[in-house]
């Protein structure tokens, strides 16, 4: 576990030094993105409409902050913390190819495709410690700007000047190593095996009758139209 202090914007070379599990502190400009801004970036890139902020070689944070408005174009950051990143995996290809950030900060995990994407574009996924929004909020030196204000406080894009923003840890490095995946596939898998043995629970037995699969998924379509469906139960 090494510790790095990175000044933004960063470079391909600096990103390559980071390994999954390392601790990182960032100084410089970051931009917040959430559900609606991701959708708009995707839409604007497709329609070739200019995006009003530049994140090339920079850092974006999956976050809907709490901001206090002081006067016109002047704000104070109250709380700045990471939101669940798995919601944004579908938007990652257009974001990385279209805008070229080197650092994606969030919490939880990204999709399998994201690992390959980060690898080929030399970018990393950093984990903020979920729930530490008062701590991270106190590291905002200045709220620089607000874009797409029509989305409201949480979903609009905020530009922050950060000073030693951290601790953050490297969740997926640019060699495609994924800390969460290691936790699940190695640590949790082994521990669960032992737990189920101790409780005499068969992990391959179906205790649950309903739902078979969650409604609203591709697997639900498959289930409904397959011969195995037990709809006459």
């Amino acid at each position, binding site marked *: 576990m090494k510790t790095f202090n990175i000044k933004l914007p960063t470079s391909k070379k600096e990103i390559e030094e980071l390994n999954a599990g390392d601790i990182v502190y960032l100084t410089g400009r970051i931009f917040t993105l959430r559900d609606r801004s991701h959708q708009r970036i995707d839409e604007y890139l497709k329609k070739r409409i200019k995006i009003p902020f530049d994140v090339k070689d920079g850092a974006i944070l999956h976050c809907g902050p709490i901001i206090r408005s002081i006067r016109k174009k002047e704000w104070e950051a109250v709380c700045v913390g990471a939101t669940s990143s798995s919601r944004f995996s579908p938007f990652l290809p257009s974001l990385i190819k279209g805008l070229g950030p080197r650092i994606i900060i969030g919490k939880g995990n990204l999709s399998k495709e994201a690992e390959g994407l980060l690898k080929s574009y030399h970018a990393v996924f950093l984990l903020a410690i979920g729930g530490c929004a008062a701590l991270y909020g106190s590291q905002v030196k200045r709220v620089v700007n607000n874009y797409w204000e029509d989305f409201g406080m949480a979903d609009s894009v905020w530009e922050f000047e950060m000073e030693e923003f951290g601790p953050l840890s490297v969740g997926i490095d640019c060699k495609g190593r994924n800390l969460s995946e290691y936790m699940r596939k190695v640590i949790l898998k082994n521990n669960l095996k032992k737990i189920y043995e101790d409780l005499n629970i068969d992990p391959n037995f179906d205790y649950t*009758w309903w739902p078979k699969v969650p409604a609203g998924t591709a697997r639900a379509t498959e289930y409904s139209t397959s011969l195995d469906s037990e709809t006459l139960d």
Partner: protein
Amino acid sequence: MKKIKSSVIEDVCYKLLTHASIELPPEVEKAIQEAYQKESNPTGKFYFKAMLDNINISRERRVPLCQDTGIPMFYINLGSEVYIQGSLREAVDRATSRATQDVPLREQVSHPLTREISKTNVGWGIPPIFLDYKDNQDYIEIIGVPRGGGAEAKWQCVHPYAGVDRKKAIMKIALDAMSMAGGECCPPVIMGIGVGGYGRDYTEVMARKAMYRTPLNSRHSDPQVAELEETIYQQINKMGIGPLGIGGDTTCLAVHMNIAGGHTAGASVAVSLYCWSARYSKAKIMSDSRVEYITHSNIE
């Protein structure tokens, strides 16, 4: 029957929501302190330290613990010996609107279809009021919960086969709920489990209310339920998920289970998780309108 004015309820709801957003219940903070002390993974320990720093910064600067200040929810238990004079709905709405402005809380209640944002966190039936009733009780109990999204989204509610070993099914469902959620529900969590209570609405509310039990990680009065709680608590802490899924010794701070009668053809099982930043606050309004703050005794 004694009268309690809705203005008293407004004042209490305002204070519950405000304090819950800024300060953890002391026993939750203590549980995180203890987890920090005993953590053997250096990165996990580092994470717990950051959580404790966050708790202190919120307290000193009087800012919310988390940017996701949640959907405000109120659980109200009305005693048979008291009644409310005035509008409970208006009291809760006004309390929420004032807390949103004063703390400030994030504006995040939005129309489910159009996504129009309420500036006050009031609107379209929010905040919900979960009303319960008790005989021979001369006070109103209120739990105010600024319920964030990350852990809430990872709820489970399923219907086990009637013919399977019921206790094993409950354990498997509870363990699956935790292992599936992994780090994204911001562990260590408080797990609430509801079993029985035909229909998901009842089962899920039982699971949610179980999370807010005081004292933290205390056991149910029914020894069979208590045994399941203890087993699930012990086993989850052997998963190694640790703080935020980074790996560590503490994955849950507490496991609480509530039960109600089920259907002979099966009893639904619901699991609800609260992130480490488990924000809730509880008060009793006595029949003479005196207020007792239970989780946050520092409220004036």
